[in-house]
């Protein structure tokens, strides 16, 4: 099938299999390997990207479902080399260790703050329920979101 999509500000057209998942389209067709796969059940959120500004798990979206949409991956979050406040906060608060969940986690946090710019700790934890991290115990991820919200 013919697919047209804007990925990190660049419009592209590709011929894809109807069953191709968005995450594999981004990784294999677009070469954007920052988005990771961590499970098969849309439980872990490692594959989270922004689809027209809202976070989605790209392992449970068919590429063709994103026809005409604008997708932002971790590679497209910084502007002109300046890190997004959430990216900065993750470094300052040591919100990442192995880094595998990080691209999805950062985009989930961007989406969370877009919906709720001044969340409480409990709201942050609830909002990140669908994004798993095995390294940090979430402590510093929560700190990073609260810091970025300031």
């Amino acid at each position, binding site marked *: 099938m013919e697919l047209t999509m804007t990925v990190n500000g660049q419009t592209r057209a590709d011929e894809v*299999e109807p*069953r*191709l998942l968005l995450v*594999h389209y981004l*990784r294999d067709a677009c*070469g954007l*390997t*920052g*988005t*990771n*796969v*961590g*499970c*098969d*059940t849309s*439980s*872990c959120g*490692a594959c989270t990207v922004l689809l027209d500004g809202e976070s989605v798990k790209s392992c449970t979206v068919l590429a063709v479902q994103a026809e005409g949409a604008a997708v932002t991956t*971790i*590679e497209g*979050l*910084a502007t002109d080399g300046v*890190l997004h406040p959430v*990216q900065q906060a*993750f*470094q*300052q608060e*040591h919100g*990442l*260790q*192995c*880094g*595998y*969940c*990080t*691209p999805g986690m*950062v985009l989930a946090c961007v989406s969370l703050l877009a919906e709720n710019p001044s969340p409480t*700790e*409990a709201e*942050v*934890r*609830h909002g*990140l*329920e*669908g*994004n*798993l*991290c*095995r*390294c*940090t*115990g*979430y*402590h*510093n*991820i*929560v*700190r990073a979101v609260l810091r970025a919200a300031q």
Partner: protein
Amino acid sequence: MSILGNRVVRVEDPKFLTTGGVYVDDVRDPRLAGAGWVTYVRSSLAAARITGIDTSAALDSPGVLAVYTGADVDDLEPIPPEVNGLNPTMLRPWLAHDVVRFVGEPVAAVVTVNRYQGEDAAELVSVDYEPMPVVVRTADALRDEVLLFPDAGTNVALRLDDGLDETLFADCEVVLTADIVNSKVAPAPLEARAAACAWGNDGRLTFWATTQNAQDSRDQLVEQLGLAPGAVHVITPDVGGGFGAKFGLSPEDAFLGWIARRLGRPVRWAETRSESLTAMGHGRAQEQTVTIGGRRDGTVLAYRLEIRQDVGAYPRMGGMLPELTRLMTSGVYDIARVESRAVSVVTNTAPTIAYRGAGRPEATAAIERAVDLFAAEIGMDPAAVRRRTLLPADAFPYTTAGGATYDSGDYATALDRVLAAAGYTELRAEQARRRAAGDPVQLGIGLSVYVEVTGSGDEVARIVVHADGGATVHTGTSPHGQGHATSWAMIASEHTGIPHERITVLHGDTDEVPVGGGTGGSRSLQLGGAAVGEAALTLVESARKTAADLLEADPGDLVLDRGAGRFTVAGDPGAGLTWAQLAAAAPEPLAAAGAFAAEATYPFGAHVAVVEVDTESGQVRLTRMITVDDAGRVLNPLIVEGQRHGGIAQGAAQALLEEVRYDDDGNPLTTTFADYAIVSAPDLPSFELVAMETPTPLNPLGAKGIGEAGTIGSTPAVQNAVVDALAPFGVRHLDMPASPERVWRAVQNAAER
């Protein structure tokens, strides 16, 4: 001013935050051009005889390059137990061909042009099974009625038993025995297993691995694939978490080298989460019987630990876990008489492997439960029983009955600090109020005091200074989240004055770093970091001589101005050479090697967990977690706290939520993150960390391991808190995890009594 001890943000973070790391499945290397995609066909039964495999439909499927079964593997020896000492007759085939021994065991390998074709074709491989009797529980395995390996004549992979002293508890006023289960859990690194490999025209195998130890992985490939030393080059890209589960290569990894050779083209593989939860292997998996005895005044006189270790279907690291458990049997306590024995048995479940703590959490959980049982029986505050039983601060170095030599410690101070930070007295008062009021939401307060064992062994490092004034540190450790790129640079910077941002850390490439022990067992800083320090000191001394030659000065007159990164001649500040100038002018490469070896260190700590237990619904909420985790001198508090956070979370998760479960037919019931209750952000509070640093004399950094400590302390603290909350209902013990159903049943059983 020293950079050590400061909160230095990680230099490796910008990459992870902007483009993401490069994990195995992300590697786009010309050597992997045209790589076939490998999909394993796995057993759907726990124990069965294979009566036929039909691959014809799969071979006709689009994109299929090859399908291999066990019959094809005629040139490899079967895989022996992973470590020496385990029953050597329990051999694992690369692909099961005679019988299968656990659900998820590889039976065939399909190679396709792309990933999606692999899933399609694997479905078309038809395997005929004749079911056999299944052994799932260790008690059944120990009966030796159904044998997984008939030729072995037993299911026992390891027995550590010097007999029991029948008089051990003879003089005790109180003796308590309990059977407790240290549940099976999934390490679940977010990056599951993956590997890729290619044979070069030179006959060498290049192997990309998500591993904690590249050099051991290289040696394993050489041995298992029957290759010449030097024929394997392992490259470790970024690794998405390991937690012990990526120590060494799994059979599915190593077999890729065989497939690539047989197929004549490079191959790659990445398992799905379901495959990972089914077949990567699980941790803990111990059943224990604890017996504790003493006097009613709170004196503990004797303790016995009996261990039944579930090895899973093939003996991997899990078979040896009881050795470490036994070593740490008596924990932080001064108990006159201690003994232990263990047996490891195979079952028709996925192999048991190392998982964060690997043998030590099991020891701590056992004795911390036992002490609470004792305290409850004699009606004494568990903190008071602990305080009077702890080894005193002047006891160190201290050699236990089990043969461990604790290097340094101050357990009573750790306990005092954590109790003060928790507001222990106030917590007990609040608990008393809720109990008196019959509040449906009861408060539970759980303690643990722990000591564990880390390091032991040796490690190497090398530093090279470049003409631009930067440097590269080569290390045999293998970080996968632990921040070595920052910490090792800090150590090198401390001695050389080269800014830590200008120092690159290289690891995990066996051609660049041929010798190394990797990262695991909380060994890295105390051995690998210390080796970097040794290399840096050697570098400074050799650079001093080189600078003296170039400046025609006496080496003794040369001073390294570490603030400026420049050697100057004493009394002549104008004469000098920066590292860049020195590297550019030096006749030989400006480099030095370092090595460090030491005995084990023993980190320790004390945890307080506070839980609210809804006695009407069984719901448990962890509301506070206060911890002292003393790992000696802290190099970078930011990173050390991060290690503590992650460890605490994983340990608490075992007590609260996580459990790998099998039904009686050996079918795994927790094969997705929807079924396996992996801990998420709302399940946990923010952690309250209390600082304490008791340096070890065993290395120049004064540092002990911190990777696993949090896990070891938190599991029993949380479990004890749940039991404590249920004390008014007569509950003395509750196995992990504290699921709502289990808690609710405990309350109901009490009501019926």
